[in-house]
C-alpha cells in the first residue's frame, strides 16, 4: 500500500512539474484594447461609427494607411457621461506601432482636442504610418473628457519590415532637416551625463572618508563642527560656483544654437464642420424593445412611416459598431471586420417596401453571437437600461437614409 502511495505521490509531483513547465511556454500575446469590457450603454449611446474603411490590411514600414468613415454623436447622450465638449480623435493601437501622420474631422486637421455637437454626424480620417512590425488591432477611437475612451470597431492590420528602417523626416521652420525619431537624443544624453557625473563626483568626495559610525559618534559627542573642514567648504564653493557657471554657459550656448524656439501649442478647437444631412423622410417609433437573454437576440416593435416619395426597405441596424444586416436588402462589400458583422442578423417580420405615405408596424429582431461576444447583453446591468442605434433604410436605387432609435430595453430571462 505504501509503495502505491509513494508512486502516486511521485507521479503527482512529476505531473505538477510538467504542468508548470508547459505553462511557462504558453505566453499568448495580449492584444485586446478592452473594447468588450467597456459598458455597453457607452458604446451604444455615445459615438456611432459607420461607413468605416481601413485602406490596407498589410502595410510595410514607413508606408501609410488610413482609417476613414463617419461618426454620429448621439443626441440622447447618457447623463452619466460628460458631453463631448472636449474630445480628441484618437486611434486604438498598442502604443506607437504606427505614427499618426494626420487626423481630420470634417476635413480639418485635428491635432488637438475639439468640441463636438450632439445629434450631428461628422466625417473623419486618420492617416497612419507604419513603424513597428507585427499584427495589430487598429481601432478608431474618440476620447471624451469626463467620459473616457469611446472605442470604435477594430481590424487586424499587418506591418512588415524591420523597425530599424523607420524614419520620421521633417524640415523645421528654421530650415533644419531632421529625423524626429532620433532628433536631439545625443544632446539629451550628453547633458544628463554631464550633470550625473557632477552629482556622482560630489557623492564620491564625501564617500571617500568614513561616513556613518565615526561621524555619528562625533556628532553625538558634540564635535560636529570638526567634521566639516575649510577644504570641504572650498570644494563645496567650487561645486556651487561650477553649477551656476555651467547653467549660465549651457543656457547661452543653447540659445545661440537654437535662436528661434516657440512654446508648446495647446487649446481647444471649435467650429468643426459636420455633415449637412438631408431632412429625414422616415419616421420610426419604437413601441417596445426586449432583449431575450437565452436567445441572444433583441426584438423591437417599430412603427415606421415613409414620408418620402420612393419605396424604402430596412437594411441595417448598427449599434456599438456591430452591424446587423438583412441579407435580402444589403450585402457588405467594405471588408468590415467579420466579428462585428452579422450578415444575416436582422430579421423583419414584413420587410416588403414601405410605399410613400405608408405606415406599418413590424417586429424587428437583431440576433447574433456578437451580443454575447461583445458583451452588449450586459446592457441589462447598466444603470440606465436603454439601447440606441442607427437604422439604415434603402430605396430601389440604393439610396440610403439613416434614422436613430433610442428606447428603454426590457430583458427577458425565459
Amino acid at each position, binding site marked *: 500500500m505504501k509503495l502505491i502511495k509513494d508512486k502516486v505521490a511521485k507521479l503527482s509531483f512529476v505531473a505538477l512539474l510538467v504542468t508548470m513547465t508547459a505553462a511557462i511556454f504558453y505566453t499568448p500575446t495580449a492584444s485586446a484594447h478592452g473594447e468588450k469590457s467597456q459598458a455597453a450603454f457607452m458604446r451604444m449611446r455615445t459615438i456611432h461609427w459607420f461607413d468605416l474603411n481601413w485602406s490596407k490590411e498589410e502595410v510595410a514600414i514607413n508606408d501609410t494607411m488610413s482609417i476613414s468613415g463617419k461618426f454620429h454623436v448621439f443626441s440622447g447622450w447618457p447623463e452619466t457621461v460628460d458631453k463631448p465638449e472636449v474630445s480628441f480623435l484618437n486611434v*486604438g493601437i*498598442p*502604443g*506607437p506601432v504606427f*505614427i*499618426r501622420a*494626420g487626423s481630420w474631422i470634417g476635413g480639418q*486637421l485635428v*491635432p488637438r*482636442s475639439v468640441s463636438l455637437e450632439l445629434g450631428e454626424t461628422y466625417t473623419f480620417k486618420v492617416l497612419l504610418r507604419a513603424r513597428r512590425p507585427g499584427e495589430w488591432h487598429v481601432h478608431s477611437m474618440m*476620447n471624451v*473628457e469626463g467620459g473616457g*475612451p469611446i472605442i470604435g470597431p477594430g481590424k487586424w492590420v499587418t506591418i512588415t519590415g524591420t523597425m530599424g528602417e523607420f524614419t520620421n523626416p*521633417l*524640415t523645421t*521652420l*528654421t530650415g533644419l532637416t531632421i529625423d*524626429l525619431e*532620433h*532628433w*536631439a*537624443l545625443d*544632446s*539629451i544624453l550628453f*547633458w*544628463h551625463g554631464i*550633470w550625473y557625473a557632477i*552629482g*556622482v563626483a*560630489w*557623492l564620491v568626495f*564625501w*564617500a571617500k572618508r*568614513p*561616513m*556613518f*559610525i565615526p*561621524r555619528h559618534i*562625533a556628532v553625538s559627542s558634540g564635535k560636529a563642527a570638526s*567634521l*566639516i573642514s575649510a577644504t*570641504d*567648504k572650498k570644494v*563645496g*564653493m567650487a561645486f*556651487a560656483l561650477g*553649477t551656476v557657471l555651467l*547653467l549660465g554657459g*549651457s*543656457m547661452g550656448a*543653447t540659445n545661440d*544654437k*537654437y535662436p*528661434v*524656439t*516657440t*512654446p*508648446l*501649442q495647446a*487649446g481647444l478647437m471649435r467650429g468643426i464642420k459636420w455633415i449637412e444631412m438631408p431632412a429625414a423622410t422616415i419616421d420610426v417609433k419604437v413601441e417596445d424593445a426586449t432583449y431575450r437573454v437565452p436567445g441572444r437576440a433583441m426584438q423591437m416593435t417599430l412603427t415606421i412611416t415613409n414620408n418620402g416619395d420612393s419605396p424604402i426597405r430596412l437594411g441595417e441596424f448598427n449599434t456599438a459598431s456591430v452591424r446587423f444586416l438583412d441579407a435580402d436588402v444589403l450585402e457588405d462589400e467594405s471588408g468590415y471586420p467579420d466579428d462585428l458583422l452579422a450578415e444575416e442578423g436582422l430579421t423583419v417580420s414584413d420587410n416588403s417596401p414601405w410605399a410613400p405615405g405608408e405606415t406599418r408596424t413590424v417586429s424587428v429582431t437583431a440576433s447574433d453571437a456578437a451580443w454575447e461576444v461583445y458583451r452588449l447583453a450586459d446592457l441589462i446591468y447598466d444603470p440606465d437600461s436603454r439601447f440606441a442605434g442607427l437604422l439604415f433604410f434603402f430605396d430601389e436605387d440604393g439610396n440610403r437614409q439613416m434614422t436613430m432609435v433610442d428606447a428603454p430595453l426590457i430583458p427577458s430571462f425565459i
Partner: protein
Amino acid sequence: MSASQSAVRSRAEAVAVSRTFDWMILFTLFTVVLGGYHIHYMLTGGDWDFWSDWKDRRLWVTVAPIVSITFPAAVQACLWWRYRLPVGATICVVALLLGEWINRYMNFWGWTYFPLNMCFPSNLMPGAILLDTILLMGGSMTLTAVVGGLAWGLVFYPGNWPVIAPLHVPVEYNGMMFTLADLQGYHYVRTGTPEYIRMVEKGTLRTFGKDVAPVSAFFSGFVCIIIYFLWHFFGKWFAKTDFISDEDL
C-alpha cells in the same frame, strides 16, 4: 565570545568594519531612496516628467520642483543632523535619475517603443548640488530652506533648457504650427493619454508675455521653501531613535 565582548580585536579591524558598514548603509539608503522617491515623483510629477510635450514654461516649471524637493529635504535633515553629511539632496537625485533612466529605457522604450527623445526625465541635479552646498557652507536649515529652496525652483528651467530647447524648434505640419515636442506627442500615439489631459500653457500669467518661465520659476521657488521646511521636519522626525527601545540599544 560573549555578548559583552567586542566583535573586533584591533583598531584596523574596527576601521574595516566601519567602512563595510558605510557601504552597506550607503547602498541600502541609495536603493530605498531610489524606490521611494521614484514612486513619489511619478505619482505627483507624473506626465510632466514623462513626456516632452508636457514640459512647458508654466506648469512643468511650477509643479516639478515643488513635488521633487520633498525627499531631498527629508534626507538632508537626516544625514546632516545625524552625520554632518551634506549629500542628502544629491544622493536622492542621483538615485532618482538612475531609476528614471532604467524605467524610461526598459519600459517606455523596451516595452512600448516610445522614442527616448520623447520620454526622458527632467534634470534635477543643478538644484541638488546647490541645496547640498548651501547646507554645507551655511550649516543652517533655515538658510538652506530659504536660499536653497528658492534656488531649487529657479535653476530647474535653466538646467533643463539645453535638453528641451531642440524640441521647441517650430515646424509647419499640414498647415499648422507645432513645436517638435508637440509633434512627438501627436505622432507617437498614446491611446490612454489623449491631448486634453495635457496640462500645459494654462494659467493667467498673460501680462508677462513670452517671459513667463522666470515668473513661474520664482513662484515655484517660493513654494519650494515651504515644502522644504515641511519635509525637513518629516526627515528629522523619521531619523529619531525613539522607535528603538532602550533595551535594544
